[in-house]
């Protein structure tokens, strides 16, 4: 512990404010690229992702003729599955975050605006959801509704809703305390109008940062559910699905597992670096 002499006292540790750093720009670029792949994926995919082309051969390696990244155990084009899987995984995560954010806005907004027993009941309900470990809650929802892509979205969004609701509530309370809201109320604006016109526009930034973080959690959540067979159903590709299926064939061809794993790690890493950067930039 030689370097301890320099224990900083008033270090400017939280390098707050300002623009994004290089690594954050890189992360933004990587994430943008992944999003682009998700949008264009199905157009770029050379084959339908579930098409089994046994004539071409199973478990081909990357660079095989006609299959840039090779094929999987059912002779499906890996590139196509990866591209469409990117759209599926990102789509599930995005839909879950949007839905979770919507639920959070609704619940947190009502709790924050109304206060009193409504607030107490809603927030205890959110605490109740938080009493389930995330994957357990998602699994209960999958059990209740039957596993499907839609259930996966719903399950992840419900897992996220309490976090959003709490944030929305505290931001709403903060904004409500401000003078301009008091002024608006004095001039007779309705609670709904105040929420829409005065509060909502002022809480987007922190919510956005939270949503980015949530997105970084939704990706592995989808992957884990699909890996367990409780998420996106076969033969639709998703990253979790591909890993789950490809694992059996790992010694014959690692690509079915390695490629989606890389996608997951890159996506989560880039979004979390980006979210940190955005949050820091917004804190100015």
């Amino acid at each position, binding site marked *: 512990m030689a370097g301890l002499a320099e224990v900083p*006292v*008033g270090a*400017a540790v939280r390098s707050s404010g300002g623009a994004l750093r290089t690594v954050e720009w890189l992360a933004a670029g990587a994430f943008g690229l992944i999003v682009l792949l998700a949008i264009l994926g199905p157009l770029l995919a050379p084959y339908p992702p579930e098409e089994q082309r046994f004539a071409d051969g199973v478990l081909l390696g990357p660079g095989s003729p006609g299959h840039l990244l090779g094929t999987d155990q059912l002779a499906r084009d890996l590139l196509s599955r990866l591209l469409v899987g990117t759209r599926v995984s990102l789509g599930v995560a995005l839909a879950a975050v949007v839905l979770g954010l919507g639920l959070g806005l609704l619940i947190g907004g009502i709790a924050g605006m109304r206060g009193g027993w409504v607030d107490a009941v809603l927030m205890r309900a959110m605490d109740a959801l938080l009493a389930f470990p995330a994957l357990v809650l998602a699994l209960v929802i999958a059990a209740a509704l039957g596993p499907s892509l839609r259930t996966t979205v719903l399950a992840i969004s419900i897992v996220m809703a309490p976090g959003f609701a709490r944030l929305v509530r505290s931001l709403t309370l903060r904004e409500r305390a401000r003078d301009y809201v008091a002024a608006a109320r004095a001039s007779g604006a309705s609670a709904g109008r105040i929420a829409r016109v005065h509060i909502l526009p002022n809480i987007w930034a922190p919510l956005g940062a939270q949503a980015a973080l949530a997105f970084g959690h939704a990706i592995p959540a989808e992957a884990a559910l699909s890996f367990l067979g409780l998420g996106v159903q076969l033969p639709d590709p998703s990253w979790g699905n591909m890993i789950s299926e490809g694992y059996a064939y790992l010694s014959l061809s690692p690509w079915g597992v390695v490629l989606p794993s890389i996608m997951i790690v890159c996506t989560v890493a880039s979004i979390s670096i980006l979210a940190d950067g955005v949050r820091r930039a917004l804190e100015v």
Partner: protein
Amino acid sequence: MNLAPNEDRAVLLDVQDLRVVIDGPAGLVSASDGVSFQVRRGEIVGLVGESGCGKTVTALATIGLLPPSGRIAGGRVLLGGLDLTRMREDELREIRGSRVGYVPQDATAALNPVVRVGEQITEVLRAHTSLDRSAARARAIDLLRAVGVPAPARRLDGYPHQLSGGLRQRVAIAIALACDPELVIADEPTTALDVTTQAQVTELLARLAAERSLAVLFISHDLSLVASFTDRVIVMYAGQVVEEGPTPRMTSAPRHPYARALLHATPRLERKLPRLATIEGRPPDLVSPPPGCRFEPRCDRATPRCRTDDPQALRPAVACWHPFDGVSA
């Protein structure tokens, strides 16, 4: 209780042309710009100036406690003849807490909230002396008793938040005195306290200084406060010393317009007015200070010369081209 200034006493702390720069958001700030002063053994010196004038940074720099963004850009700090600015961190560490005690501005914030009071006292003893656990504890009880904490043994097992603000400050003083230092740097130790407690604490410091022939560098923005117990007062403005002298003269007839303004701005104890009455205007930007007198923009005695010629050239006399004569303010 005031000791007469004794010019014969040995110089304990000798700050010579100290320059401290801080890397701030707007650029390098000269927080301490050629500061020189001395503290003699057993002497209580007040270092007075507005907030942000560099007095705290100067004092911290003497014992190497600058923030990472700050560094000493020049000058020397001699403690008993040893140059502290040339010392390694581990050598400084041996001096801090043992030869130089430090009393923080706000004991509530400075005491570690999650560590028992006793441990916060004994840890400094254990770091600098060979006392074992029980001996250190006994000494801690003595110290608390000496600084006037009632039921000291019981307090040792409590946490800081269980004490009143005045008691916390006394604990902080006890910590500063734990290893019988030669010098105590007290950084506005009474700011956070109410007026009555303030007086008790300053009284305590003065008494302890006398009993232990301790030198005290008492930092304050309140000239009238230091008037009651210091031997000498140094007035700083914008990173520079503008005037110093024996307390009676400094509090009756300061010569520098800033020192005088400070005296007038300072509310009397008995008036119970807000303590921080202010002087018109703001201190200059220390990233690129003006070439002349730094007080010039706020000074009603200013002449064109003040804007161009730096009165620091007059030091160690009063750094002013147009000082007041020695008449009482």
